[in-house]
């Protein structure tokens, strides 16, 4: 019985992925939930660029600028998401935290092939959440680790998939 339970939980891990869905202007983004270390209000985050929490320094990540978005980060729903990959840590300001969701991997869709530019590095895929299209952000890019991932994958094509999948939380 114990074994059966164990198998069931492993199967669930393989088939579903958890995401924190956030909003920046009209754009909805999903961050693989395993990297989320906290969600702070403006008051809790303070006015400094970097946020220190539990002894870890989270450097400010400006997604609005990086993605050329228009967002209002002065509203009362604005939050700072503390995010980590284990070795890099970022404090991401978002206009709204929409929710946490588990979705089946089959519902993670790749970015259509017609998108051929840098956005393929920015997003690991997309999904539909509460009837809204959500872009799954690649945490390695958000945390500025992508150059390293790319340099490794350039030398060893087989590792592209491994590195990318790991860096986006093994999502899609």
């Amino acid at each position, binding site marked *: 019985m114990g074994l059966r339970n164990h198998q069931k939980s492993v199967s669930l891990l393989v088939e579903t992925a958890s995401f924190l869905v956030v909003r920046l202007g009209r754009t909805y983004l999903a961050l693989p939930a395993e990297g989320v270390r906290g969600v702070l209000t403006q008051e809790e985050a303070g006015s400094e660029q970097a946020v220190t929490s539990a002894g870890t320094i989270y450097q400010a990540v400006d997604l609005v600028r990086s993605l050329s978005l228009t967002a209002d980060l002065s509203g009362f729903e604005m939050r700072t998401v503390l995010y980590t990959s284990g070795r890099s840590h970022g404090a991401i300001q978002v206009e709204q935290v929409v929710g946490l969701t588990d979705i089946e991997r089959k519902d993670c869709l790749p970015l*259509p092939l017609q998108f051929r530019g840098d956005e393929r590095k920015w997003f690991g895929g997309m999904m539909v959440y509460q009837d809204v299209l959500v872009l799954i952000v690649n945490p390695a890019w958000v945390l500025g680790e992508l150059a390293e991932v790319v340099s490794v994958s350039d030398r060893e094509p087989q590792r592209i998939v491994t590195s990318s999948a790991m860096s986006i939380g093994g999502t899609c």
Partner: protein
Amino acid sequence: MLRAARGQQRTQAAKRSWSVLVFSVGGKRLAARTEDVGGVAPWVESIPVPSRTPFVQAMLKRGNQVMPVYDLAAQLNCRLQGDLLLCLVARHIDGPLAICIDADMPSLETVDATAIRPNANGDADMLGAVTIGGNEVAIVALQRLGRAKPDAVRG
């Protein structure tokens, strides 16, 4: 044998003619091969997507189907006309692609293949041009739209 010969004649005639859908973008008359068209439907609001791919910066969600949007009006440097815009779904080589077109209802035409003139300006997004109703109409290469741009292949 006679029947077979007639069938062959019909096939050859079909080869000599193209069935095209004529539509307009910003008042400019354009055409596309009917086999490259997946359908025409009312336009619904698109969802902006951060992107560096020229003219591909949004997606359209219709029910469970999500498809990228190609901004043909921006490429042609014109503004869409009409209140109730339409969505032309292209059978693009990379998957369905939505294009917002003018509210004018598209029409079907058959054109003689020999009447199609090759591109004078070498635009890879156009298959050629043909005269329909006295107007020069460019035939859009829906299947490969956006693929020819060298600056779009980065990343």
